[in-house]
């Protein structure tokens, strides 16, 4: 059986997009058979990615879009979240678990994303911006 073609959504750089993206991804994952215990975690990972794209990447710009791609294949769901911002270096993000950072207000998003997906990569997006790739494997029921 061939996999469906990737589905691409172009979303505005607004807070509302975070809810919309979570719904799109969790509905797809649920349809593919992801267990209900895993859905909220995947939803959180997506929310954190899209929040980063809206807030830090596109800085709420009405001229910039969030690029959400869902790529379904047997047993796994790949999700790409791209922005049109200036990019960032993941190695520049301080370790939120370090003693000196525990009481910092921000910086936990990537930690939470990693906690709830099987693979997480960050790369430069062409011609500009950042793209994060998440992979969630569906456990055989």
């Amino acid at each position: 059986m061939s996999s469906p073609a990737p589905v691409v959504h172009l979303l505005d750089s607004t807070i509302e997009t975070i809810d919309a993206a979570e719904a799109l991804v969790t509905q797809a994952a649920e349809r593919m058979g992801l267990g209900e215990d895993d859905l909220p975690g995947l939803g959180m990972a997506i929310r954190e990615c899209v929040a980063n794209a809206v807030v830090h990447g596109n800085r709420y710009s009405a001229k910039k879009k969030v690029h959400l791609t869902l790529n379904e294949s047997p047993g796994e769901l790949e999700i790409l979240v791209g922005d049109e911002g200036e990019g960032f270096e993941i190695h520049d993000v301080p370790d939120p678990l370090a003693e000196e950072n525990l009481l910092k207000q921000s910086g936990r998003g990537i930690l939470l994303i990693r906690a709830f997906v099987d693979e997480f990569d960050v790369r430069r997006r062409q011609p500009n911006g950042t793209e994060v790739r998440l992979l969630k494997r569906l456990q055989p029921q």
Partner: protein
Amino acid sequence: MSVKMTTRQVGDVTVIDASGRITLGEGSSAFRDMIRDLASQGHKKLLLNLGDVSYIDSSGIGEMVSGFTTVTNHGGMLKLLNLNKRVKDLLQITKLYTVFEVFEDEATAVRSF
């Protein structure tokens, strides 16, 4: 639904009953404003009841940490009550269990101040 918060006094402890979602935007800013207002009004023993909070994201966690720091800097204490499994998991993942005192019983929490 965004977050809703009400306060009540149990002795000298101010219990904040929160419900809904503490997430980026309106939810986390409402939470921040309430904690800051209570701290600046001199409330020093704050117990945050999260029993009806269905969801917290990293922004909400950040506001909880910020609230903890604000209250501590005012000479007070902020403790947590009634965390659901997802919120407990978040505190484990972020190691914030080492920062917050967490209770499952209100009477015990109130006595702990």
